[in-house]
């Protein structure tokens, strides 16, 4: 790792959404968990507050020395000892018993032996099933015939975030068997997309990448702000994150751009399950900010962002729910 490059400037701490939240002060901060602690022999007993990070990559973007803080933190998480947080324990139990982090509510499986697989991810199958159906019909209207396989399991990303690497690896092996039947994998969750590309080596496409260059329209009225997902902008591609705005604008949606639009919603990195109070406090502050801007609601491209901001009473739509082909 490259922690030795730290110049102690504090840029990582100034941008951290957890440290900057009133309920985030127990978090030791990105410099401690991403730079200092990983270099100590006693790191494994750092304590559970070190998990109080949404893995939003803001610290990594801010670091003038190019330190890969997120990577260091993930390694630290895999080395930590002691009991898991209750929410993380539940996640491990769920994956061990049925292969997904949350119970599956979705029932619209499509298993026709198509060459394309739409992979909605655990939240898309367990919490935001409406979003999944919208993306599926959008793909159909774009003449992309696809399966939604009941055999595809959690991508493993949430397990990597809580340091359960063995379980994540097991999921990867089982998923790769399913993926081997397809030529193309389309996702609607940036976290899944990142995991499939980085860990599986599969060129999975986020739905924004599928939509780019297509003639699209929208019937959405009013002014809408964006919630730019962390793992889309700072994980996959900042260009794809810019496409979120340009696709919506091209489809005729009135998009209000805000400097804070790419700030974390508080839902990632195992925060939602591990520290629900802090997670919703971060979301609440974002919702307050959107409300002050007087927008109709927020458009995003991540089931976690939809879920976490939605829980605080914000009207949140996924890009897959607001646009359709023009023909």
């Amino acid at each position: 790792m490259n922690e030795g490059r730290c110049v102690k400037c504090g840029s990582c701490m100034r941008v951290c959404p957890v440290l900057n939240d009133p309920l985030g002060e127990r978090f030791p901060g990105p410099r401690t968990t991403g730079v200092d602690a990983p270099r100590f022999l006693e790191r494994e007993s750092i304590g559970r507050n070190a998990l109080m990070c949404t893995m939003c990559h803001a610290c990594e973007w801010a670091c003038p020395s190019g330190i890969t803080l997120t990577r260091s933190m993930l390694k630290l998480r895999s080395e930590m000892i002691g009991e898991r947080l209750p929410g993380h324990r539940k996640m491990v139990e769920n994956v061990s018993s049925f292969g997904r982090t949350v119970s599956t509510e979705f029932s619209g499986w499509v298993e026709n032996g198509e060459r394309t697989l739409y992979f909605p991810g655990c939240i898309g199958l367990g919490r935001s099933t409406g979003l999944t159906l919208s993306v599926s019909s959008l793909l159909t209207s774009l003449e992309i015939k696809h399966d939604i396989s009941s055999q595809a399991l959690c991508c493993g990303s949430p397990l990597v975030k809580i340091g359960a690497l063995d379980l994540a690896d097991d999921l990867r092996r089982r998923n790769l068997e399913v993926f081997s039947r397809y030529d193309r994998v389309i996702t609607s969750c940036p976290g899944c997309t990142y995991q499939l590309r980085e860990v599986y080596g599969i060129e999975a496409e986020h739905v924004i990448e599928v939509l780019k260059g297509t003639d699209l329209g929208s019937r959405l009225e009013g002014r809408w702000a964006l919630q730019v997902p962390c793992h889309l902008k700072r994980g996959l591609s900042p260009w794809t994150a810019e496409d979120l705005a340009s696709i919506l604008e091209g489809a005729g949606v009135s998009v209000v751009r805000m400097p804070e639009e790419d700030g974390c919603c508080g839902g990632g990195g195992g925060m939602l399950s591990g520290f629900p109070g802090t997670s919703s406090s971060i979301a609440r502050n974002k919702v307050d900010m959107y409300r002050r801007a007087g927008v109709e609601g927020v458009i995003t491209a991540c089931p976690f962002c939809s879920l976490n901001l939605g829980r605080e009473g914000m009207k949140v739509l996924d890009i897959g729910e607001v646009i359709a082909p023009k023909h």
Partner: protein
Amino acid sequence: MSHALVVGKGAAGTFSSWLLAKRGWEVTLVGRGTPSTALSTGCLRSVPNLCRAAISEFLNNESMPWASGEREGISRIGTSYRCWMSPAHSTWKQGETPKSIAVVGLDGHPSLLPRVASALLNGRKIRAAPFTLAGQVPSEVPLASSFRKDEAWEDLAEELQKMSVETILIPSLVTLQDYHRLDQLEGRCGRDVLEAITPLGSPGQRLADLMLSKAGEAGVTIWDGRKVTALDVKDDVVVGATVVGGMDARHLSVDAVILATGGPLVDGLVLKEREVSDPFGKFRVVRSAAPLTGGYDSLEGMLVNTEGRAMVNVAGAGDCLSSGSREYGSGLTEALESAYRAVRALEGT
């Protein structure tokens, strides 16, 4: 329209992008990580000799008014700070030292040390008294995050009203968007509000944010969070660049390049032990035994290739250039002046 690529989003990169865009170039600005501009005090210490009017226009904005001339302020530990240009609430006109100052810090937070600062000010015959406000912000947590909401400012104003002094020195608390809160605070508490001079805090970040937004307003395409990993060179001319962001990469065709990648940190010049080298492997670097003086070699504003010939369309600006001597605290002004020279050199081609 000619397309320029500017690498680096600190003072030198943003100012040269802004100048090029004003002169009709199509500009793409690529930068990653917090630039040293954002780690500075956010004030210009030395007077620019070259392009004062352009700098004033570049920094002019509605959110944060500036004061220039012979200015003086107080650091977070109470030492004197002199500069040529600062945000209006950071300094006073030299010779108009406040009669009495209340130094207000937050309990246990290192952003402003009331007792130390007051003692130093008293030692300089400036009447000052320390005040510590109750607070529970851990020292690692940036103070600005506790002052986002109106209520926090109401509470602060109420506390400050009680103080019978002319001027109140507070820690740096505000972002660029929130700068107007200092005027409001002054109105509410009826005292002059002075912000402590602080490096590594919000004043530097405000300056960096302002410069980037001015470049954006001038029409510069900003590719933030991305890095130029390779430059294509044909016959001493750079014709293209590879830009990487996240897991993605793009190729860009360019007519001119300004490298403003800063001092020898990771994304700029490569630092190995005491040697600096060019990460692109294309340009000559002057190595120096003195600290902070090594960097890219240049001939009449253009970088020099490894064979010693001046490049046709590549200029350098800011800290990545080698410099004969560097005066303490002159970095920002030097960066802006060298950006101006880089643009002039390119326009000559």
